[in-house]
């Protein structure tokens, strides 16, 4: 009940995604999200700087092509 009240009272549903997004944008570490097929679906600005690809160019590319030297997704 308190959670539901908090959601509406403090507009938590609006704040949390924004906070997550801001956190990802301000991180020094590069974060790359892949889908099940190993395609890039999201990169943060640090990842854009590191791999020298704009998000618009990187998204949709197979990670194996975009990041041949960094392949931790092969395991697990």
């Amino acid at each position, binding site marked *: 009940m308190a959670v539901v009240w908090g959601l509406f009272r403090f507009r938590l549903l609006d704040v949390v995604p924004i906070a997550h997004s801001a956190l990802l944008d301000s991180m*020094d570490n*590069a974060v790359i*999200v*892949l889908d*099940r097929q190993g395609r890039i679906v999201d990169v943060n600005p640090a990842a854009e700087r*590191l791999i020298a*690809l704009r998000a618009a160019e990187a998204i949709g590319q197979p990670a194996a092509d975009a990041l041949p*030297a*960094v392949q*931790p997704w092969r395991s697990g």
Partner: protein
Amino acid sequence: MVERRGGGPPGDRAGEGERLRVCDASSSTLRGRRGRAIGRLIVLRDITGRKQAEQEVRGSELKYRTLFETSTDAIFVETLDGRVLDCNAAACDMLGYTKEELTRLTVADLVPEEVARTLPDLITEELTTGGAFVQAANRRKTSRLPVEVNTRLVTVGEEQLAMVCVRDVSARKRIEQQSNERRLYLESVLACAPDAIVALDSQQRVLDWNRGAEELFGYARER
């Protein structure tokens, strides 16, 4: 964490030109509500700067280690109470011990007893030898060799250590002795010669005057 060296287009292209970047990479599976894998999350941490710094430190260490090991002078790194922590190859050659043996010894084991008695309990800044002084060192306690010792205190981290540089001056001492003997020999030849021998400089000033000259000219050598 998996470390991967970036290189080659396009994934490892760094923002700054084509320089290689070194990253720590971690990857985890993203799961949906039913626990099915729906993707992967990859986090890359650029550690190029740290790796470069580590490499520079290693390069610097190698440089100084090479200087240390190829020095013809024996170099000892000691605690202030005289325990040998490290030494170079010249130290082993000079004193006839292996490095393992030397690092189990103290300065008192490496010098003759009469010198050991005069050693301070603790080396202090005042007791370091900015200039060199000569003393004897023991070669496996069987023979002695004259050495010139130069001690400096250095701070490594939070510890104060003594860097002791020891030079074998046997050859110099031998040359000094030979030169002294030669001088005495020539002086005795000059003194005993029955002929008058007078040494003059370029301005015809008398530099030396032997007994023969004293007898011939009637002037004593010393006036």
